[in-house]
């Protein structure tokens, strides 16, 4: 391995890097940030922004017969090249020198910054990118501060509708072509391109096409300026007010790592977080925008009890007590519990304990399947099916007992049903309101009002995945953490807390005090989780079980890294 | 006593207390604020009514409407009693003050006692109970300290106060305040004996002890009424608000009223003893108490009395906004080491003059 390492001098200090490392990455690893716009490790390097120009030097070519003198460390002298080179596309070689702070480098950066800014509208007060804009940042770090540009700026189209979720402002575009490369290389939907030339170069969608693939919002993430903005997040909030919480997406079994931005208790956007084992740096639009229901009007905020005049709000004590009493009043063989594979492992563990306590055999989750899109969206649309199988100890595929439960309700074999985190009347659930009305007792724990709740005697308001802490297992068997982003509305509670109280009401024992404690109990009982704690799960998750599944997008990315097209 | 006499007394009481003393208290407060403002180059309350003359009404309304709460750990009974105990003695003392000569044949005094000054001192010294009680019942350290200070201060200065007027009594030879005024009306005032009998060598010689007497009396009066520079029982820099820290609303107002009422009575006493009460100077419209006088003359006498009182009150205010507060030890020292001795010596001096000079 050591043979593959080369010695590189960066700003006077010698480092070792594997041969073939890009200079920009070498500098990054050495703790020196080289400013750049067009370069993105997951995309090809066209080297067109010219921001990463650095001074480079190599040992001089010896004249025939001449031997270059080495210093005491065995290094050859470095002859600095008069012209700067781009750090993003050039790779390091033995005895290479890089200067990122030299006068030449500085003048290059100043010059490029000035040129980038002359035709860029300085409408930062309006632009949504302000605060996370590379142009702003580098202008402060590397710019001159003043402008010598006294001419009129080039006018280009503004507020262009290029797709349902992305808006384009051409005047702000600095032609880094990241979005073009993303749509062509990663999303395989090359609809973006440049038209016109010179200063009038304009980003545009191909005539008759629109940027509407399911990964279009990633272009917004990678756009270093405010040219591409999300229609959904546009003008909602300045980014410096946002509080970022690291969590995972629960839209499907992939469990893409996310960063959820919120302000004062409401979620405003969700962006992907880099995890090269799960989602690279990308995320699908569908999952990304799937948070609006959290602020919905239909959220359940109080425990409800059905009386003769419909549901009325009651205290938690009464609601939990009623639910416990009702369930305890049935023979265990007449009770069924339908949990959800959208619940966390901790929730599911307490469901398992509840089933044990009540002696319930009819226990299952509702399965959801769609199509694997060949990128990130997994066929399994439940975020925690793997976890459900492991934690609930299901002996068959998740969802396979649901039709049996339906039949048993019809025949009257099952008289009481507790639905946790699922609307049974949903297409995937397949229970009709008429069928539910045949039950003697129906209880529900869910975060949003639904038809099942209408039929339920006891309705307990639970939490969405943005409001609870816990863990989930994705389709590739990776254990990942969920973090609470916003506080719960009204009196709603985290599901594990509701289930704990219910268990306590049934067995009178002491329950766990936090989801961490629930996880510890789970780790004692379920072998796959043994020796782990909730707090010890790395922010990027860790492999829990081997499922043999791969992520198509990551496989392609690995291929491109191997070919040297991208850095990865 | 027959019914008519009783009714007349009642009219006098009500008239004096509610038509004169109370409004005077109210306007003393207004004057206090206006004068202090003028002294300090400000304007003072001028917003409610013409020149702010309705300010006292607004203040009173405010006091009545304010929440009247009783702190949790006070001795409720005493706590409630204390304000009344400061208010009542102050008002009681006005019973013996001759606030006029005669009106429609009726002497303008509520109770024409033959031991007027003694009665006043006896009653006035009761007001210390209100303050002590307030300080103690509040169950709070600052009021308590204020109460303790007040007690020692008032007891101390009562001595010099009492002793200071003995020369006056010796000169006038009477304890009936009404007759003391009549005497001054005819023979010249004690402080300014510029006409009549007292305008003689003996009278002028006696002026020396009388002036000393007046100074000691006035200073002691300041101390007795807890006014600056002797307001140590309620000095806000040390004790928040002293004995009435825990009081609010009308109860606080009663302390306030009591203080100002005491000030008015004190002024009245000083006027009566040293400046001829209701009498005009130079024997104008003098009255020896024998024959009846026309009603207009009585009214002029009454106006004269209250005019003098007002001047005194203004003097009180003037002093308050001019002088800094004493330290407590200085206060006690002044009372015991100087005024007490001065008053005693003054008595001897008076006696000597009276004995030696014919």
């Amino acid at each position, binding site marked *: 391995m050591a043979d593959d390492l080369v010695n590189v001098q960066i700003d006077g200090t010698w480092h070792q890097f594997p041969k073939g490392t890009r200079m920009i990455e070498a500098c990054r690893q050495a703790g020196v940030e080289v400013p750049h716009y067009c370069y993105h490790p997951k995309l090809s390097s066209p080297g067109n*922004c010219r921001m990463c*120009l650095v001074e480079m030097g190599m040992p001089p070519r010896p004249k025939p017969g001449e031997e270059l003198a080495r210093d005491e460390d065995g290094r050859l002298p470095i002859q600095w090249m008069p012209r700067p080179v781009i750090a993003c*596309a050039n790779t390091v070689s033995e005895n290479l020198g890089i200067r990122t702070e030299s006068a030449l480098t500085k003048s290059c950066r100043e*010059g*490029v910054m*000035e040129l980038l800014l002359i035709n860029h509208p300085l409408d930062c007060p309006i632009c949504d990118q302000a605060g996370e804009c590379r142009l702003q940042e580098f202008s402060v770090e590397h710019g001159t501060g003043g402008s010598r540009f006294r*001419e009129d700026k080039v006018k280009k189209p503004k507020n262009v509708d290029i797709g349902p979720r992305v808006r384009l402002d051409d005047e702000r575009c*600095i032609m880094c072509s990241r979005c073009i490369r993303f749509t062509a290389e990663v999303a395989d939907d090359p609809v973006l391109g*440049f038209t016109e030339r*010179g200063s009038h170069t304009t980003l545009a969608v191909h005539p008759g096409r629109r940027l509407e693939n399911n990964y279009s919002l990633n272009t917004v993430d990678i756009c270093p300026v405010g040219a591409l903005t999300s229609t959904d997040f546009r003008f909602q909030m300045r980014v410096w007010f946002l509080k970022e919480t690291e969590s995972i997406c629960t839209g499907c079994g992939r469990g893409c790592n996310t960063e959820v931005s919120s302000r004062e208790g409401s979620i405003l956007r969700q962006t992907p977080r880099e995890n090269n084992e799960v989602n690279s740096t990308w995320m699908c639009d569908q999952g990304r925008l799937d948070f609006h229901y959290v602020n919905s009007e239909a959220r359940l905020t109080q425990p409800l009890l059905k009386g003769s005049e419909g549901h009325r709000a009651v205290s938690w004590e009464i609601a939990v007590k009623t639910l416990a009493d009702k369930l305890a009043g049935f023979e265990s063989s007449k009770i069924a519990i339908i949990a959800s594979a959208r619940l966390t492992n901790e929730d599911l563990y307490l469901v398992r304990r509840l089933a044990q306590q009540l002696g319930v055999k009819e226990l299952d989750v509702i399965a959801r399947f769609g199509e694997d899109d060949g990128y990130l969206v997994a066929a399994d649309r439940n975020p925690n099916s793997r976890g459900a199988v492991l934690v609930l100890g299901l002996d068959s595929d998740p969802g396979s007992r649901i039709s049996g439960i339906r039949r048993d309700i019809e025949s009257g074999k099952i008289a009481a049903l507790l639905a946790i985190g699922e609307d049974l009347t949903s297409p995937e659930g397949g229970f009709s309101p008429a069928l539910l009305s045949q039950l003697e007792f129906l209880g529900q724990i869910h975060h949003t009002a639904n038809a099942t709740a209408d039929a339920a005697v006891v309705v307990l308001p639970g939490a969405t995945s943005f409001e609870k802490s816990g863990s989930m297992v994705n389709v590739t068997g990776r254990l990942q953490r969920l973090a609470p982003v916003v506080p719960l509305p009204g009196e709603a509670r985290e599901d594990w807390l509701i289930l704990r109280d219910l268990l306590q009401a049934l067995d009178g024992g002491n329950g766990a005090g936090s989801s961490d404690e629930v996880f510890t109990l789970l780790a004692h009982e379920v072998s796959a989780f043994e020796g782990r704690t909730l707090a010890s799960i790395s922010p990027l998750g860790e492999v829990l079980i081997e499922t043999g599944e791969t992520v198509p997008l990551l496989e392609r990315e690995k291929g491109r890294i191997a070919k040297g097209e991208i850095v990865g | 006593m027959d019914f008519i006499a009783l009714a007349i007394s009642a009219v006098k009481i009500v008239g004096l207390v509610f038509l004169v003393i109370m409004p005077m208290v109210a306007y003393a407060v207004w004057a206090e604020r206006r004068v202090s403002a003028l002294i300090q180059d400000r304007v003072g309350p001028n917003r409610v009514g013409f020149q702010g003359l309705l300010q006292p009404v607004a203040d009173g309304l405010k006091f009545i409407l304010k929440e009247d709460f009783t702190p949790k750990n006070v001795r409720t009974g005493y706590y409630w009693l204390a304000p009344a105990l400061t208010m009542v003695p102050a008002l009681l003392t006005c019973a013996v003050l001759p606030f006029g000569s005669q009106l429609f044949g009726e002497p303008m005094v509520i109770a024409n006692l033959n031991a007027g000054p003694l009665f006043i001192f006896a009653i006035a010294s009761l007001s210390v109970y209100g303050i002590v009680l307030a300080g103690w019942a509040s169950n709070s350290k600052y009021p308590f300290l204020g109460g303790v200070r007040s007690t020692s201060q008032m007891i101390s200065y009562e001595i010099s106060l009492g002793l200071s007027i003995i020369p006056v009594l010796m000169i006038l030879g009477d304890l009936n305040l009404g007759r003391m005024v009549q005497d001054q009306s005819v023979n010249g005032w004690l402080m300014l004996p510029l006409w009549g009998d007292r305008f003689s060598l003996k009278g002028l010689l006696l002026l020396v002890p009388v002036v000393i007497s007046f100074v000691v009396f006035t200073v002691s009066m300041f101390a007795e009424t807890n006014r600056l520079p002797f307001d140590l029982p309620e000095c806000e820099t040390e004790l928040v608000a002293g004995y009435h820290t825990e009081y609010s609303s009308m109860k606080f107002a009663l302390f306030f009223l009591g203080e100002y009422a005491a000030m008015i009575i004190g002024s009245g006493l000083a006027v009566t003893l040293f400046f001829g009460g209701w009498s005009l100077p130079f024997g104008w419209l003098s009255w020896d108490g024998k024959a009846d006088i026309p009603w207009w003359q009585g009214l002029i006498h009454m106006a004269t009395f209250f005019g003098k009182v007002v001047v005194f009150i203004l003097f009180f205010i003037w002093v308050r906004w001019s002088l800094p507060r004493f330290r407590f030890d200085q206060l006690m020292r002044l009372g015991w080491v100087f005024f007490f001795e001065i008053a005693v010596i003054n008595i001897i001096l008076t006696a000597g003059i009276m004995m030696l000079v014919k």
Partner: protein
Amino acid sequence: MSNVTYISGKEPHSREHRLIFRNIDRKGYDPGLKCYLKDGGYEQLKKAVTMEPKAITDEVKAAGLRGRGGAGFPTGLKWTFIPPTNTKPVYLICNADESEPGTFKDRYIMHQDPHQLLEGMAIACYAVGAKLAYIYVREEFPHAARILEEAIAEAKKAGFLGKGICGSTFDLELYVHRGAGAYICGEETGLIESLEGKRPYPRIKPPFFPAVLGLYMSPTIVNNVESLCHVKHILAMGGAEYAKLGTPNNTGTRILCVSGDVQKPGYFEVQVGKVTLGEVIQDFCGGLKPGRKLQAVIPGGSSAKVLRADERFKLKRGDEMVEIGLEDIPMDFDSLAACGSMAGSGGVIIIDDSRKISWVLNNINSFYAHESCGQCTPCREGSLWMKKISDRIVAGKASPDDVATLESVANNIEGKTICAFGEACSWPTQSFIRKFRAELVADTREELAGVPVNHETTLAAANLKN
């Protein structure tokens, strides 16, 4: 040679040495194959296919042929850059995107003597092992494209192209590709991108050296029309013999395209370095217009640095340095480079004292602002900025500060771009300002210093005064 007669009025100058242009404006000559064969055409191809490819490359190397497109890179050396381990197909592209202002030689070859080019290309393809070659013709030459296509069809019919050329096993398919009209397509990687059907964005080097990763990521040789024609003549004369033409290291003949303020502008094929700039102006072009004085010369196409008429240059003659004037500069690659300019594409532009320097500079800047491809930042933004500043200088709305700004913008472009366009557009500005600063400053107005010029800032300034 004596049997060659030219259209009257188009006779070559006595000091010309016509190789490539032998048939241009020749009386009775047409672009057809028959005419070409009559004149000894395709003989060299017939000879070449019997030779070892390496032998041809060696001949070209021995001839010391330098590329006539602009950079002057040795052609033979370029051919050897194809990796010996290469397994991918090799392509040869004829760069017929002649778009440098001041240059007009390739169009004559294509219009009047297309078979000469085809023969040269076929020999070159044989030498580098290419079985597929393209002629990239610029959009503005529709006739050339048509003539070349007809010629290819004729040659193919006659067996000079296609399968088994001249009875050998050498196969060659030749296609004409028409560009869409962009200066940047003359840049070899831009040309390759364009040929691939993309926007002609020049590629970054490294790693995209055409000889390694060229067209379709395969080794590709890109040569100028004139360079390829020379191959035929090198083979005919033999490399060593060819090298005797011209001066050492600047061998052969080259075509000078003289334009501008001379009596008789036109093309002249001369031995490289055998004539001086003064001779070109005085002898070949009949001198300046009456009563005019020479002001400046751009010796190698618009992107070459300008030379001032009264400038003095230091040149190496033998072993000693001599100081010479503009008139005495020999028209060869090395001498012009030593004088701080370049031989470029051979387009000599003569500027007399009737021209305002600011107007000349603005003209050049306008061209480059229009032609910048817009890929990389410095040239995209800088070229238009330079144009806008020089616009103002011409319009008399600039201040002396603007000249300094203009220079620093050019400095910010030079050497910082992906392709040579950065230099092409910054060199004229840099050299004009360096050599004609006084003239440029004379067109500016001192009182305009700091006065905003655009509409928005004017408005802002007006408000500021309120």
